[in-house]
């Protein structure tokens, strides 16, 4: 019998991955991907969010 994935289970990181909390702040002062963020904000302002 095939068991369906329990969608109530928390998604787990793939094997070999771990979270390093120090990365949360390490690059805070560096404006990476600013152009992309500007484009995202433009899209969100123009189109909004999907209707669910």
């Amino acid at each position, binding site marked *: 019998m095939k068991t369906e994935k329990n969608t109530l289970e928390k*998604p787990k990181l793939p094997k070999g991955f771990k979270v390093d909390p120090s990365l949360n702040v390490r690059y805070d002062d560096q404006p*990476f991907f600013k152009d*992309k963020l500007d484009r*995202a904000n433009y*899209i*969100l302002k*123009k*189109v909004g969010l999907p209707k669910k």
Partner: protein
Amino acid sequence: MRKIVRYSKTNLRGLYNLGFGDKDDETGFISDTVITNNHDSQKVLATVAATLYAFIETHPGAEVIAMGSTEVRTRLYRIGISKNLEDIELDFEIFGLKNEMWETFRKNVRYTAYLVCKKP
């Protein structure tokens, strides 16, 4: 080649923009357009997808918008999503932006951006 993945707050509360690219350790410069051509795009996308799981795990209720910096990259994202769509849809709702309208992601449709949110 070191990769950087960053989730940035957008102007909408609870919605973040996903960006990733290659970091030059010498210059510190980040590029999301360079092609490192290591034939590892699927592995890279799998890693980025793993960060998405981790991010939403630590930011309950967050939604994430993503788009490629070039059309080629946007198409690469689409391929990666399509390949794993059944697994993705177990946990997430995923939308594609087409003609300035969001719709539920469908395979083989050209989108300009993607939006992901965890299913309730």
